[in-house]
């Protein structure tokens, strides 16, 4: 059983990347452009730096409890009752994020590709894919994520075609929007990094030394940062200021404006691949929610909890599908995301440092 849940460091990298890249990146340039204008790409690099610090915090926390996963850490630091409480909150958070992913996914898909298909059908298809993979053990999910990562290469290869038709003047003068706006943009970009908390859950299952872990996590973060800023940069020099204000999904619009001899609408092809990226994020949240649930209710197996959490997400998503509700929902998810992704783990780390709490028994289990 233990062996099946072990993953290698390469799998850890792709796991982190796949969890983070999901729905948000299609609209990322638009969201940040609201604040940072032509300097949005700088904002993203700023966020990348900030996230790197956060990731190191995560690893420090995990290294103090090398054999325990996150919910056990919660319990050892906060005590049994409070720990369970927080695990419960985390379950809620994972379910909320999972539902948000579903809602946004269907919203974009209906807008771009399938305007006449009923809402619940798309939802159902996504949820069933999610269940299909999320009930498997960790190493199988990780293997799937590794294969799915090749899709990212496709995005990286196709997007530079835009260079035929760019106007570098759109992002100049560099630094014009001011440091405050850049920081504002950077804080709003954190939603795109949501999913990084998966490190906390994966950590005990990774076969790697401390140093390798730091390297792997840094690499994943670097990749994400560059991927986001690269796409954003291209969108910024391809679309003018006035134009990007009108395009909520600039990455797709960018792809739509290309046309090749054989494929006239590359955006449709890439939307199909994008579905896989969304799927992987959704699966990660299903997995996390079921893991948390299984820790709370010891009697139930994780498998049955995957079904339950998928059902909750489906049910939730079916009721929140209006345009205004989506805006509200993303807002809530961003704020709760900041709380659960940054505030609580950092708070835990501080507590464990203050009270010198470490894993009991194997204090020197550094070299496993």
């Amino acid at each position, binding site marked *: 059983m233990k062996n099946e849940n072990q993953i290698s460091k390469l799998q850890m990298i792709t796991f982190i990347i796949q969890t983070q890249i999901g729905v948000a990146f299609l609209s990322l340039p638009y969201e940040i452009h609201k604040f940072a204008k032509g300097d949005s790409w700088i904002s993203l690099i700023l966020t990348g730096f900030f996230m790197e610090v956060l990731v190191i915090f995560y690893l420090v926390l995990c290294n103090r409890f090398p054999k325990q996963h996150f919910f056990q850490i919660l319990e050892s630091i906060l005590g049994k009752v409070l720990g369970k409480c927080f695990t419960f909150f985390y379950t809620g958070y994972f379910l909320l994020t999972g539902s948000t992913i579903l809602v946004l996914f269907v919203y974009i898909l209906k*807008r*771009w590709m399938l305007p*006449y298909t009923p809402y619940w059908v798309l939802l159902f298809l996504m949820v069933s894919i999610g269940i299909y993979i999320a009930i498997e053990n960790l190493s199988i999910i990780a293997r799937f994520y590794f294969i799915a990562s090749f899709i990212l290469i496709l995005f990286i290869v196709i997007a530079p075609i835009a260079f035929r*038709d760019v106007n570098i003047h759109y992002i100049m003068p560099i630094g014009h929007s001011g440091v405050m706006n850049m920081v504002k943009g950077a804080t709003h970009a954190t939603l795109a990094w949501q999913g990084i908390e998966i490190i906390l859950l994966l950590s005990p299952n990774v076969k790697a030394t401390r140093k390798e872990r730091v390297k792997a996590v840094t690499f994943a973060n670097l990749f994400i940062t560059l991927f986001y800023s690269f796409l954003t940069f291209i969108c910024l020099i391809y679309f*003018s200021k*006035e*134009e990007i204000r009108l395009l909520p999904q600039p990455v797709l619009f960018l792809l739509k*404006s290309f046309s090749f001899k054989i494929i006239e609408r590359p955006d449709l092809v890439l939307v199909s691949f994008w579905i896989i990226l969304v799927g992987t994020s959704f699966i990660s949240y299903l997995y996390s929610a079921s893991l948390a649930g299984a820790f709370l209710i010891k009697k139930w197996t994780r498998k049955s909890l995957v079904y339950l959490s998928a059902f909750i997400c489906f049910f939730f998503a079916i009721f929140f599908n209006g345009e205004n509700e989506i805006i509200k929902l993303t807002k809530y998810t961003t704020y709760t995301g900041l709380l659960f992704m940054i505030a609580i783990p950092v708070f835990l780390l501080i507590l464990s440092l203050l009270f010198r709490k470490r894993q009991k028994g194997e204090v020197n289990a550094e070299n496993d």
Partner: protein
Amino acid sequence: MRRTIERLVLFMCIPFFLTGCWDQRLLKEQKLILLVGYDVNSKGNVVASTSYPISKGGSRDSNSSSFSKSTILTTNGETALDTLLHADLNISERIDISKAHVILFGEKIAKKGLYQELDHIYRNPKGALSAKVAIIEGKAIDAIRLKQEEADLNGRYYDEFLKSGESTGFYTDYNVQSVFPLLLNHTKDPMLPLLNIHSEKHRARTVGMALFNNEKMTGKLNTTEAKMFLLLNGTKKRKVSFLIKTKNHDKKKQKNFVIIEILNARQKTKLQVKNDAVTALLSVKLQYRITEYPKNHITSPILFNRLQKEIKNRLTKTAEKTITKLQKANCDGFGIEEEIMVHHNQLWEKKYKNTALRDIPIKANIQLELINSGIIN
């Protein structure tokens, strides 16, 4: 046995979840419109003329593609999309504009503004963003009715026509997508191909470029000026030919002229700021060859210098004329306001925001270098 039945039931259920059932678009139920022209009538309504291929004689004949013909439909409406909805009433199948090759505008509607006609294409996820855009002198409907002989479909004819015009350097390569920022952005203006229709000769003809101020057409350039604009702007670098009249009034008319072809162009836009006033300097270094010069052979350096001087004079005059025309039309095709915004941002905020082009003095500086005069001197 039970398992088989279970599976069978499952497989029979799956097709109900296939999304194709809702969002399918079958070719046999759709009329693909390849060419659209927009005009405005005296009441101010939009008139759309569409041209779509119809196959005659059925599909038995495998070589029937060469016989394919297109039909024309003209409809009125309040807005651009409304005209197409009206067109749907007249067609046996559903109308589909997502595969349009070319979108033409009559002069009158271009003067009212382009964005409102293109808006529905930007909104539509299936919109034809790579369709080319051109302006027709007179009415677009004449262009669509044209019975040309060079291509089997009118849509393809204009597509190829505009493509060749771009490569010869008559106009810039703008499609629906690349013109979008210029219609919105106030710091640079679009310039689109301008065509003329000779219905009797069954031909379209390039007239030059239509000048726009934001989204409204405000002027015209002829072909020589259009070529000069492309050189000054740095969009076109080679394969542009100019006919130049040398000074001597020879009785034999042909001997007054020389034709040069540009082989390489290096363009630079400089802004000179003095006392918060910007002067734009467009300098371009042209390497050229002489492709026709009936009058003389270039044997001595004195002759050559005289000729080069003459060419330079003429080209500079053309450039100045082009710039004056642009200024008159208030069409910032060079993107000079954008340059000011980028390089002198504070000055732009203070003084040049949404300024008229005629308030910015623009100078042209042309330098010439002869590469060869063909394979003879």
